[in-house]
Every structure is written in structure tokens, then in C-alpha cells.
């Protein structure tokens, strides 16, 4: 088994925050987009999970709001090298959304309104590590930051936290997403500085 050490790269911060290797802290919230911002009305919004056998589960906005939510406060790390400490969100844990989904899949391909996709192992969406987030800093999530709802997977580089999330395809075999097909890492652990394929 590989032993992964954070080594001496991380810089200790106030209040227990730590900067992964190669990152700098920002107090702003940069907006990075690979395409136009989709404007999705809440009446039309839907989140869909499709299993590897083709079974489809979906939630409309009212159904999402009726689910128990959590308010994680997390540090986020963008592959373009900025990190932002102590970001406050509200959203539904993927543990809740996937609780009744029957699947033996190992991989997930996350889809967004627009044409964005990103891939990650299914286990990284479970056990309290990921949310469908719809509020930021006690306010509705602005469209430029992924509203009405975005994925939040803060332990991986932030391109995995797909803005304008529309669903998740569960897969037996890994399928690469928008940035992963042009050189970005399939996993993207900021603490191991997995920015590009081969890192």
C-alpha cells in the first residue's frame, strides 16, 4: 500500500487552515468559466442520477429543498493555484441523494447544465465528503458561482466541484470529463498536487 505523506509542503495557517503545495490564499472568490453561464429556472431545474444499469433517479427543486441539508464550512483549492479558507455553504449531502440508489459502480461522471463534465471515483462523493450546494455565505448561490446548485467536493481541486450541476452518471469504467480529457488529473488531490495527468 502506498504511504502518502503531506511532507513539509503545506503551510500552517491561522485557525487550523493549511495551504496545499503550490497554492496561495485569496480572500476573494474568483470566477472561472469554460463557457457561458447557464441560467436555469428553478421550475425547470432537475438533478438526475443514472446508474450503470440505466436506472434513473431524479429530484426537482422542491424535492431537493425538502431533503435534510447540512452547512459545511470548508477550505477550497483551485487548480489555478488559489485557495480560499473557511467558505460557508448549505446543501444536501450526496449520502442522502444516493442513499436509496442501488449501484455497484466505482466511478462517477458529473454533468452540468451547459456541456461541462468532470469525473471522480464514486467513493469520493460518499461518507460526508460531497454536497449539492445551493447557498453560499447565507445567500442563494449566485449563477456565476454555479447557482442554482453546484457540486461541492472540497477535498479535491475545485474543477471537480461542477457548477450548475445537473446530474451524475454512475459507471463501471472511468470516463473522463471536460478538463480531464485535455490533460488534467483524473483524481485531483491538492495535497498530492495532482494537477495534470502523470502528477
Amino acid at each position, binding site marked *: 500500500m502506498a504511504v502518502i505523506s503531506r511532507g513539509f509542503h503545506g503551510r500552517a495557517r491561522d485557525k487550523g487552515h493549511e495551504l496545499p503545495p503550490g497554492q496561495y490564499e485569496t480572500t476573494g472568490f474568483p470566477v472561472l468559466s469554460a463557457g*457561458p*453561464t447557464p441560467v436555469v429556472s428553478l421550475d425547470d431545474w432537475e438533478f438526475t442520477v443514472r446508474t450503470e444499469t440505466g436506472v434513473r433517479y431524479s429530484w426537482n427543486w422542491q424535492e431537493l429543498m425538502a431533503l435534510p441539508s447540512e452547512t459545511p464550512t470548508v477550505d477550497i483549492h483551485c487548480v489555478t493555484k488559489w485557495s480560499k479558507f473557511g467558505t460557508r455553504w448549505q446543501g444536501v449531502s450526496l449520502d442522502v441523494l444516493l442513499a436509496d440508489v442501488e449501484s455497484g459502480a466505482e466511478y462517477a461522471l458529473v454533468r452540468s447544465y451547459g456541456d461541462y463534465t468532470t469525473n471522480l471515483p464514486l467513493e469520493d462523493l460518499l461518507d460526508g465528503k460531497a454536497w449539492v450546494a445551493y447557498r453560499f455565505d447565507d445567500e442563494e448561490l449566485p449563477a456565476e458561482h454555479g447557482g442554482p446548485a453546484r457540486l461541492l467536493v472540497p477535498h479535491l481541486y475545485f474543477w471537480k466541484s461542477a457548477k450548475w450541476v445537473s446530474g451524475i452518471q454512475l459507471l463501471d469504467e472511468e470516463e473522463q470529463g471536460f478538463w480531464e480529457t485535455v*490533460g488534467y488529473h483524473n483524481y485531483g488531490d491538492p495535497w498530492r498536487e495532482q494537477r495534470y495527468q502523470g502528477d
Partner: protein
Amino acid sequence: MTTEPGFLDGNAAAGDLESLFGADMTTAAGQCQGCGLRMRLAEAHAYLGGPGTVLRCPGCEDVLLRMVRSPNHLWLDASGLDYLRLPAAAG
């Protein structure tokens, strides 16, 4: 679903593209694989500043080209273009 633009024109990607192709790509032309629109790359919609450079069709917003520069590699996907016409080097 509607969309809000947040792009620059294709000239903003000129430096990135010239480093890849070795030519002034603002006068290069191409055809969108999605809608068939023919355009100069300078007319494309450029999304910069993120993990890579993305050029989209000014007609249908489909991705024409994606480019990522890592420390050791340059990655290019131009599969959104039916063709790309580059200016020939002056002889």
C-alpha cells in the same frame, strides 16, 4: 435554459494559439463541427483564465478548441472544428 455571455473575442487567445501553431492564428479560419458556421478564429468566443483556453463557436456556443499547458506538455483538442485553415508562411 438561457445563457449569459462571459467571453472575450478570439484575439484574446492569440498568444496561446501562436505559441502552439507558430503562426498568427487570428487570421486563421475554421468551420464549427456543430452548426457548420465558418469563421475567423478572431471571431470565436474565448474563455480564458481557467484551467485552460477554450474557444467556442459564436453561432452555437459549442466548443471549437480546448488547449491546456502543463509543465511538460501542451494538450490540444480541436475536434469541434471540421477544419482549420492556417495562413501559409510568407515565402
